[in-house]
């Protein structure tokens, strides 16, 4: 699964720490998600979408390996 968290974050000029505070997780969790090392829960994915004012689909994309 790939995601555009880093891009969306940059668009809004947010630091990892800012975004962490907004979606109520640690900065390390934002970091591991951006590196693709961690796939968030549905709740966290929805929170991210809400903060970025977009949909979960727009942030996360399935890859062949996910099937």
């Amino acid at each position, binding site marked *: 699964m790939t995601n555009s968290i880093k891009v969306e974050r940059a668009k809004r000029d947010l630091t*990892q720490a800012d975004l962490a505070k907004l979606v109520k997780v640690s900065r390390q969790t934002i*970091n591991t998600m951006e590196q693709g090392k961690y796939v968030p829960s549905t709740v966290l994915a929805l929170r991210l979408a809400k903060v970025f004012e977009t949909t979960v689909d727009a942030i996360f994309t399935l890859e062949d390996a996910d099937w």
Partner: protein
Amino acid sequence: MNSKFLFHNKYKKWGWLIFIPTAIASFIVVAWEVSPAWLDTKVFAIAVDEIFGDSKSFSFIDNNILNEILGVLMILSGLLLAFSKEKDEDEYIAQIRLSSLVWATYVNYAVLLLAFIFVYDLSFLWVMIFNMFTILVFFIVRFNYKLYQLKKSASHD
């Protein structure tokens, strides 16, 4: 992992403060067979099977309670240390917690399996005694190492 089964973060500090001195004291007690007379007392035993004595149940017996005190402190402080929330406990840390618990259980039983096959008699009794605490110790070491790695990798970005 549901965080309602975890203690408040402030107890982690108490876990360290009690666990480390207790672990050191326990090694000293075991190595030098320390058994101070002032801790000899009567205790209530549900079951006791003395090596050169009778089998009794639900009765009072004479015992030195130093090892009981250390064992209780070690288990309670180990639980606090292992299962107190991190300051920033979130779903990713919960995942590290769960994977560390699975890892610790596998390692603990791998060690026990080897001991079952290669260690006998009184030596095996020692393995059993250590095995009471090793699952907690393996978990604490692995979980805190993974947290350290996480913090280190995040600080580079």
